């Protein structure tokens, strides 16, 4: 019983870790405030759900979830990364609303508000699915660790700190920004696929602002431009979230109280500790 609970919780922490690390690459390391991160998570989740419920093998759907998210991410980035901070944030926020509208209305594909139930398990045994999810998360951590410590990672951070200077030094900042979003959205899509196979269900609520606020709270609490921070942020806020299950008596209130607590934590951090726990840069 307790072990089951632990296994299920740890599995969700794996895809949250991937999702938050991916967001950190764009927001923390490159300075691109992508408020539409959940769109790519949702695309990954829907891709996996739609393909596997139509009999396509999971490994194919899993890879395609990442690739499709990344292709769309790259296309959108190619058009939008030239926009200055606030406008980039606005466009990416607009994407969230478009994704919501499409997922609710393209009923023949997404079943609209009903969502897609019966997304098959990748691995029937929850314990081995947890191991699998963390293996994927481990690869993601390793890849991002290598990337952020590489020459490319240095360029991304240079762009964040002073784009003009990076450009003067001969770096093609446009290419690097698009690259950052391409990688970030790939991992968001992969996280979405893991999520869909974990809860066996996808509906338009993946695009809800509440969900994004939860994810960005984990990022900001852990600290921007710190991989360690993101992992700590995911574990820390998830523990808070789970604790709420036992503190809040009425089950119908849990969701609402949880969302309220995240917001309070997020705003306190934004005001008093803008670097988060391990962050290297101010938000």
């Amino acid at each position, binding site marked *: 019983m307790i072990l089951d609970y632990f296994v299920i919780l740890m599995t969700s922490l794996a895809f949250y870790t991937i999702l938050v690390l991916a967001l950190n690459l764009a927001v923390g390391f490159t300075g691109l405030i992508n408020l539409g991160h959940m769109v790519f998570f949702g695309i990954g989740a829907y891709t996996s759900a739609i393909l596997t419920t139509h009999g396509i093998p999971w490994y194919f759907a899993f890879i395609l979830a990442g690739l499709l998210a990344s292709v769309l991410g790259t296309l959108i980035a190619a058009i939008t990364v030239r926009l200055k901070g606030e406008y980039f944030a606005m466009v990416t926020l607009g*994407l969230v609303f478009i994704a919501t*509208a499409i997922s609710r209305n393209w009923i023949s594909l997404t079943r609209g508000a009903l969502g897609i139930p019966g997304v098959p398990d990748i691995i029937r045994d929850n314990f081995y699915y947890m191991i699998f999810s963390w293996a994927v998360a481990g690869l993601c951590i390793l890849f991002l660790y290598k990337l952020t410590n590489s020459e490319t990672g240095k360029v991304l951070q240079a762009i964040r700190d002073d784009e003009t200077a990076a450009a003067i030094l001969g770096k093609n900042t446009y290419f690097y920004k698009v690259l950052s979003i391409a990688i970030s959205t790939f991992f968001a899509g992969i996280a979405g696929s893991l999520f869909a196979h974990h809860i066996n269900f996808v509906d338009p609520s993946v695009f809800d602002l509440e969900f994004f606020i939860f994810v960005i709270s984990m990022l900001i609490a852990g600290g921007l431009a710190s991989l360690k921070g993101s992992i700590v942020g995911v574990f820390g806020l998830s523990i808070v979230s789970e604790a709420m299950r036992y503190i809040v008596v009425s089950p119908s209130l849990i969701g609402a109280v949880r*969302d309220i607590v995240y*917001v309070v934590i997020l705003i306190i951090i934004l005001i008093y500790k803008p670097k988060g726990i391990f962050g290297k840069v101010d*938000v």
Partner: protein
Amino acid sequence: MPSLSILPQLIVNGLIAGSIYALAASGFSLAYYVIRFLHFAQGAAIAIAAYALFTLSNQVGLNGILSILLTISIAVAATLLMNYAVYTPLRKRKATGVILLISSLAILTFTASLIRALFGPSTKTLLLSKHNKSFDFGLFTITSIQLAIIISAVLLFLLLWILMRKTRLGKAMRALSDNKEVAQVVGINPEKIYTYTFIIAGIFAGISGILIGLEQNLYPRMSVIIIVKGFISSVVGGINSVPGAIIGGLFIGLVENLGIWFLPSGYKDAISFSILLLFLLLRPRGILGRGMRDDT
């Protein structure tokens, strides 16, 4: 394609929807113009107003006028509280506009969750809307609340124009908007003007919350749904122009409703969001807007 005879009704529906968007956009746009950040929490203030009116008139049973006046005061108080508790400390530590935007989105979801916790997830109807009368003009019908919404949007447009162009406060707002440092040098106290801005935004939120609450039902996520349309209207109308928000609202309302001619009504949202993206990418200054401070 539907027959031509429903065209007048579609246009009227577009005007009504557009006026609702314009109401939502007005305070949002004013805050952006003066303070330079996207005040999404305006949607929270609108929802708070609607639920305040629900509590005062449905549950407490106060009479119409009194509950309306109290509702507007509550919306102003809520907006000032957001400024005092969240925005002012963030501005003090020189947070960027994007951080203010994220905190504003956080207030928005906070309010939706708080309303869900306090009032439950079900939709609510205001008792005051029982007085609503319907007028049939042959080509189209319209209710008294819908008329009030359109008239309010037009009045707000005029009031905003007078405020910005003809008053000392408007002058100070424009000065701050143009150049904060220079405005401070000539003796304008930004924090004081910001407080006035939030008071006005709060009044707009109160009026919008009442009218939108009377026209539609109340539900916890109304804060999010309403301000998203307000946001789109502001951008399309010109986020650097306060009256532009009203024009943008009407434009979006009309296009959405006339779009039903070609597309199923479920795609209303998709239409307006696509327009938003087109404007952000091709004409970020919007219909009325002038060049922006950090235009790209």
